[in-house]
């Protein structure tokens, strides 16, 4: 082009030059590899050397992580809300359990069926989201959660009523440790999909839709279709989490899927882990479940009767407080810590601070 414009002076940014150039040296890569190997070894050692074997709790944590990632798609990527995730998870769980024990299919068929039906129910809810917005839509999701909890999940033919629906684990994976392996593989697959989602056209489209439907449409993004897409993806993740949940318990009943047991803790894990922060969410899911496991032991040393008796409550109450503090002071949640580490592992220099997370978007509850 013939003409040149004066370049406006831009303020220096911490972000400049992080994408290109400055590749780490071989020693730098070795250090990064070392950290990954060390983390993997510690995890394996933990699973295989633990006397009080906690694989079942770990499986529960992995299921919680997948469920929270499902919420992350809705809240973090699409800017929608779900206060009825007990229905999302429950639909997946009961579908899988029904397919396994009533239709005599394998666990894997149940898992796929749970994912599909979970996705479909979410898309139906998404159709409502296209018509009702904000607080009113939050109420719709709340209502949907209670419809699942109090009516659908109590219909005897589908869910076995009060006795529940058995959901046996797959052959060869009936022990807690073997079943944990299945859960970890599922989590890995979900994380990989989530990574590509954000890095490809759908993730960018959702970011635009979340921030400004007008800008998104101007970029050629079908706002309605991508809103439904986000609901579908969230529902599929939730369906997978539900199916894994069912077989982790080996029998599911309606009372497992209440607002207080599922929707609220899942939302708290998503928020404290950090919106759009996969690493933070998985980490806090582990902390949340293992906290309930280890807190009584810790309390025994401290001779604190109350904590020993109420470990679950203490973890939940603390997490609730953490969620509020997160929203006020550190919208990136645990992502504040995990994101810089993740970037470093990918070969960028270690820069502490948020980028592209809730904090960077100025999410704030303060006026």
């Amino acid at each position, binding site marked *: *082009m*013939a*003409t*040149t*414009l*004066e*370049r*406006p002076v*831009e*303020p220096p*940014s911490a*972000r*400049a*030059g*992080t*994408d*290109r150039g400055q590749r780490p040296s071989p020693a730098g890569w070795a250090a990064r590899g070392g950290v990954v190997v060390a983390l993997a070894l510690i995890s394996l050692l933990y699973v295989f050397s633990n006397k009080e074997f906690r694989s079942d709790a770990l499986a529960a944590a992995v299921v919680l992580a997948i469920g929270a990632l499902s919420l992350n798609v809705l809240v973090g990527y699409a800017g929608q809300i779900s206060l009825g995730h007990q229905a999302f998870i429950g639909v997946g769980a009961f579908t899988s359990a029904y397919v396994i024990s009533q239709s005599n299919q394998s666990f894997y068929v149940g898992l796929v069926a749970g994912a599909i039906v979970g996705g479909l129910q979410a898309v139906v809810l998404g159709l409502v989201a296209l018509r009702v917005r904000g607080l009113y839509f939050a109420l719709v999701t709340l209502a949907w959660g209670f419809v699942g909890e109090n009516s659908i999940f109590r219909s005897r033919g589908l869910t076995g009523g009060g006795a529940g629906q058995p959901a046996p684990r797959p052959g060869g994976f009936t022990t807690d440790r073997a079943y944990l392996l299945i859960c970890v593989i599922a989590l890995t697959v979900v994380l*990989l*999909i989530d990574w*590509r*989602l954000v*890095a*490809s*056209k*759908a993730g*960018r*489209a959702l*970011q*635009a839709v979340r*921030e*400004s439907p*007008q*800008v*998104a*449409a*101007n*970029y*050629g*993004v*079908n*706002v309605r279709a*991508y809103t439904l*897409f986000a609901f579908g*993806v969230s529902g599929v993740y939730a369906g997978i989490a539900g199916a894994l949940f069912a077989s982790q318990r080996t029998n599911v009943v309606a009372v497992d899927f209440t607002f207080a047991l599922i929707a609220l803790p899942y939302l708290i894990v998503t928020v404290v882990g950090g919106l759009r922060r996969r690493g933070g969410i998985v980490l806090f899911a582990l902390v949340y479940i293992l906290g309930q496991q280890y807190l009584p032991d810790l309390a025994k040393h401290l001779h604190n009767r109350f904590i020993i008796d109420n470990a679950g409550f203490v973890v939940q109450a603390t997490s609730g407080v953490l969620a509020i503090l997160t929203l006020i002071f550190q919208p990136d949640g645990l992502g504040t810590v995990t994101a810089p580490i993740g970037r470093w592992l990918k070969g960028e220099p270690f820069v502490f601070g948020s980028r*592209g997370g809730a904090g*960077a*978007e100025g999410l704030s509850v303060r006026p």
Partner: protein
Amino acid sequence: MSVLETHDVAIRFGGLQALSGVTLDVGEFEIVGLIGPNGAGKTTAFNCITGFYRPQTGRIVFKGEDVSELGPHVRSARGMGRTFQNVGLVKTASVLENMLTAQHSNVSYGAVAGMLGSPSSIATERELRARADAILQLLHLDHLRDLPVRGLSYGTLKRVEIATALATDPDLLLLDEPSSGMGPEEAHQLGDELLALRGEFELSILMIEHHVPLVLRACDYVYVLNFGQLLTEGLPHDVRNHPEVVAAYLGEEAPLAEAEAEAAEATR
């Protein structure tokens, strides 16, 4: 052949007749100006053309096809690239990310294929980056590539927005006050730059613009809107001296040249 024709477009908001019977025409590779005082309905006309508003009567014909019933994302995909008066960018994303999102309708892989990491999606991502870089380089914006949009100056944002509009691969570029936030010198250069871009990207351009020298420099033809109606149309120099245009902008009996001289006096 016309790239864009509007026929008798009219839209009313409650008691306000924002546009009535607007008929205009943008020919292939033409740069057409749309001017008029504040509140004349220029941006409303843009919103009708790009599909954000549905006019109550009238038709929008784009590249020979009636697009009146199509949503804004479809019109964007068909080749309308638009910038907004108050900057239509994803502010939390970087300049590069905006350039990638803007190429949405030209991405060959499906959303699900991208999510599952298909090899073609990964190859396409690389091409998108290359194309984004090429456009940024052409507009001398490549040094801003990795900066978040939030925090850039207003004048810079207007230029980044032109880059994203080009990234949508448009046949018709609709620019809403591209020179706002720029100094007179920059605005003048923008005129040369638009002429160059027209050749480079084989574009037709319709632009809302207040900066008179820029309109005179770049536009082949000018439409003047006032109170939602076309006041007049013609070649830039003719329109500039049209008594009704002068009256509409400055009130009765104040010749434009005199007012310009006064303004120059005041700034000195």
